[in-house]
């Protein structure tokens, strides 16, 4: 019996292969294409941030510090976008501090109570460090950001605009990351 069964198994497998292989390949291909497109969408929707620290002073920005600031600033904007769309401050916990945190919390509370939400789509940030404190405990950035701003009232779009906004940003080092303390838009630098 055992021998018979083992003898038949390859036949079944062969049979499965012969009829299901194109379907399997097609499924795998479709899955790959779907995942690739999802990845592509995710990659496109993440804020694009370029940081230049060559003009920062009086202290020069160390390479590792630069990469950490870039990472944390980019993450702060990605989380801000998520928070303002979902009207929840949870995504930005620990990324903003001081005035920036108070303003942001107030904005989310206001949006929630009025039924509004905001989307910051296709973000591009060209960031320049203009001041890095002598002791390395504070950095000021100038961010020229452009994005598609969409404001919705209960899911209905009431405002859509491609904007270029100049932000003055103050960041300070926290326990394990740099946090945004001030995020103030100005007409020009």
């Amino acid at each position, binding site marked *: 019996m055992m021998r018979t069964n083992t003898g038949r198994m390859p036949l079944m497998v062969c049979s499965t292969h012969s009829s299901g292989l194109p379907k399997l390949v097609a499924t795998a291909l479709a899955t790959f294409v779907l995942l690739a497109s999802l990845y592509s969408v995710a990659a496109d929707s993440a804020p694009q941030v370029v940081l230049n620290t060559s003009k920062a002073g009086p202290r020069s920005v160390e390479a590792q510090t630069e990469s950490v600031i870039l990472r944390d600033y980019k993450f702060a904007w990605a989380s801000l976008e998520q928070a303002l769309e979902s009207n929840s401050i949870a995504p930005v916990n620990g990324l903003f501090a001081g005035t920036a945190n108070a303003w942001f919390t107030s904005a989310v509370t206001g949006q929630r109570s009025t039924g509004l939400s905001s989307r910051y789509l296709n973000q591009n940030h060209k960031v320049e460090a203009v*001041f890095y*404190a002598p002791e390395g405990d504070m950095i000021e950035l100038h961010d020229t950001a452009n994005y598609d701003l969409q404001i919705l009232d209960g899911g209905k779009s009431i*405002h859509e605009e491609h904007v270029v906004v100049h932000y003055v940003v103050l960041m300070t080092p926290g326990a394990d990351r740099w946090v945004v303390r001030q995020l103030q838009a100005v007409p020009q630098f």
Partner: protein
Amino acid sequence: MSSSTNTVCTSHKLQRGLWLSTLALCLCIAGAMAYAQDADLRAPSGAVAGNPASIATTGGGTATFYLVGPSIAVKRDVKLGEEIALSAKELQSAGKYVAIVCSGSCRSVGFFVAPAKPVNLTFLVHPSRAPVGQPNMVSGVALPFDEFHNLVLAPAPVDFQIAGAGVAPTSHRVSTQNGVAWFHTNSGRSAGALQITASINDVSTRRVVQQVASDPCSLRIKGQRNDKGFMVETEPVRDCTGNPVPDGTIVTFTAKDAQGMDTVDAPIKKGIARAQLKGSGTVTISAASGVVMGNELRLGAQ
């Protein structure tokens, strides 16, 4: 014949339909434009944080007004053709605001709110304890803020005043650039408090840096034999400007004799470090603290 008439009729009907459709579309566009003009908005110019402002509207009827700013999102009903009042509280945060009016369709206008005058000065000074006689040892960064915590970016002069032990009172005037003014200075020659004040308009903030003695400048040791070996001690240890080195600073004593070496780390207490060393016969004793070596002491056999 009948067939041809029908074709012509159909063609005429189509043309007429096309005309009517085009006319309707034109009327729609014209209507929409007229409607849009009805609800034009004029943004406040030169808005300042914490000051009321207004948005002028045209048209008539009621509409829904939205204001979205750095720390605010409000929604309320307004009458078109009247000014929309924005309260001081609604405009406390400096930055970009978007005002939207919806009545069928939506119209929007963006405007900026500038910071008010500085009433607070954030002043970061480092370090809290500074060794004396060091170049550019003390630094300070001042950032002016208005009463609503907006960073004041307009250039403004900040006065840094420095006074304390071993430092002639000095004053530096630095204009803020991008909302920041900073300085650095040498530490004084004497240990003690260094008072640093930053002032802008009538606002001032004070910080204190404790100046402490620097590293020992030289070590002199003396010693004598006793029952257990040798008792050695330093003369009062001072830095190069004559300040007593803080208690707890470690002095390393080393005794070498024919049998080998004995090393003892001793903290300074009341300006002097002491140690009991082992050794027999002729012993050479030396001391070191940081990068400073003391004199060598040779004590003979008993």
